[in-house]
């Protein structure tokens, strides 16, 4: 039995596999080294950073600069008018910005997909086609027009209304997924519910929403992550509502005497990693769940 197994293994390991493995291993290790270097640098003194770029922090583990995290927590701040926004508020802004934006965006698309798939009016098919066309046709350079309309005409620049309103709409890729799913769901559930006296809203929210819950969650996470990590939206649209990513964007060029040291700047980066990493570890399957969705897409 053993011999057979060995033989099988020998056959399976091709040069292609070995090359792929080596490339992947080098790539994965280079990525991990960057994060590892970040973490060990965050625990160094300024002196240690300059004289010991590659090594572990000097001293015993309890002598490492754990205090950098406390200092970074107090020093990561963004000036908004005459006041400062500190890390805790940025954390809140990040969460609200990402949650609100992702939820509204995915929910709108979900609702439109459901309605278009289940109510066979002519407009449904026109809308579906229009969404797909706008997804495929790359119209670029609308920033000046958006700035003019949102900032100068609607006065929706730099406030929470912008975050909410700019998220309302229909996402082409998500619509393809939801629409395809709803087409495959039979009308039996809805009919049964109707007989039981449910109205359209109840059918949509109480029956259809739960059966797409898993898919909704994955697409929600997919929309949440880029928003959480985005700093350009703050630069362009909401500079007075700094998020964590924007805080780091500003902090890396801080001129403040306490903050302007590499270990502290890197500490701030590690701090920002924590919430998303924690969420990833706890919900790994959901984060990487779009493998199956991708299958549908492909």
């Amino acid at each position, binding site marked *: 039995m053993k011999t057979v197994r060995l033989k099988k293994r020998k056959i399976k390991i091709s040069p292609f596999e070995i090359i792929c493995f080596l490339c992947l291993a080098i790539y994965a290790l280079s990525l991990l080294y960057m994060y590892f270097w970040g973490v060990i640098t965050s625990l160094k003194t300024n002196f240690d950073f300059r004289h010991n770029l590659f090594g572990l922090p000097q001293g015993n583990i309890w002598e490492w600069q754990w205090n950098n995290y406390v200092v970074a927590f107090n020093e990561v701040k963004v000036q908004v008018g005459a006041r400062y926004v500190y890390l805790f508020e940025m954390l809140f802004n990040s969460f609200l910005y990402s949650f609100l934006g992702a939820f509204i965006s995915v929910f709108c698309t979900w609702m439109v997909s459901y309605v278009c798939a289940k109510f066979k009016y002519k407009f449904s098919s026109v809308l579906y086609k229009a969404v797909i066309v706008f997804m495929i046709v790359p119209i670029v350079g609308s920033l000046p*027009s958006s700035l003019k309309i949102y900032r100068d005409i609607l006065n929706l620049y730099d406030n929470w209304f912008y975050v909410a309103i700019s998220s309302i709409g229909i996402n082409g890729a998500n619509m393809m997924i939801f629409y395809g799913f709803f087409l495959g769901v039979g009308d039996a559930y809805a009919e049964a519910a109707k007989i039981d006296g449910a109205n359209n809203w109840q059918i949509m929210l109480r029956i259809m929403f739960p059966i797409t819950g898993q898919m909704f969650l994955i697409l929600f996470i997919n929309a949440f992550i880029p928003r959480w990590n985005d700093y350009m939206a703050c630069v362009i649209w909401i500079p007075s509502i700094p998020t964590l990513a924007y805080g780091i964007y500003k902090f890396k060029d801080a001129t403040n005497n306490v903050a302007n040291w590499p270990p502290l700047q890197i500490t701030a980066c590690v701090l920002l990693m924590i919430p998303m990493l924690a969420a990833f570890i706890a919900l790994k399957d959901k984060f990487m769940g779009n493998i199956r969705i991708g299958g549908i897409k492909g």
Partner: protein
Amino acid sequence: MANKKIKKRIVWGDMIFYICTLSLPVLFFIFNNFVINFNSLIMAFQKTNLETGNLEFAGFGNFADVFKEVFTSKNLTNALWRSVWGYLVTLVVTTFIPVFFCYYVWKKMAFSDFFKVVLFLPTIISSIITMTIYRFIANRLLPELYLDLFGAEILGLTSNPSTSFQAVLFYNLWMSMGGGLLVTLGAMNAVDTEVLESGRIDGTNTITEFWHIVLPSIYRIIFIGFIAGIVSIFTADYGLYGFYGSAADPETWTVGYYFTKMTLEATEVELPFYAAWGIIVSVIVIPVTLFFRDLIYNHGPSED
């Protein structure tokens, strides 16, 4: 008669529900896709009269100014070449190489779960974090390493204008290798298992299976990157804003960076110029993208 009435009532109920659910998303869909772009078109034909402060019809003046800028500004011309170069390199490295990685993970070869998680990390960790760390690596760690290995000093890689774009581009490639992992894996999951099985019975090896069965099944996904990338020639800033804010050296600029930087710094009087720029770019990009899309979707390879 009674039945008809009930039917009509139900239809109206559906219609009201239909209108209620669609009105807001559709309104904003129209607003974001039609109104904003239509306004962009209008702006492109406007100019502010500096004496009266009023907007006036400018004919093709803004378009002429854009072409003048393209042909006279060395910064912009260089940025254009840099963008094309960036697109080609990114296309090769981040579109084709990850397919091999995905195939490895998909075949569940050694440590594939571990690789899958690590490759996914750059997606969940903000680029501003990795940029900050990478800046220190490129400017401190690597020059130090170079000095130790070769005994010569080099300038920081993201600081020196002659290496900064390459350094930033490398960062992008490094971070985006795993970017399309999940989508490509999804596409591989959809490969017909019967075809795979019959291939195995016929004694196909890994490379043959990859080349003749898997690749033809997923080529559309691979080429999505290629098609989407055409736009990126005019829009991608490769993270220059994250690295340098609005102060990147002109020798690092890409067209996307140039456009974003100039638009954000533009006064209201200058906005129509950039609107015209957007229209010109769209006019170039739309047919090119659609042509390649058609080519790939209708004339692509098929499974043997």
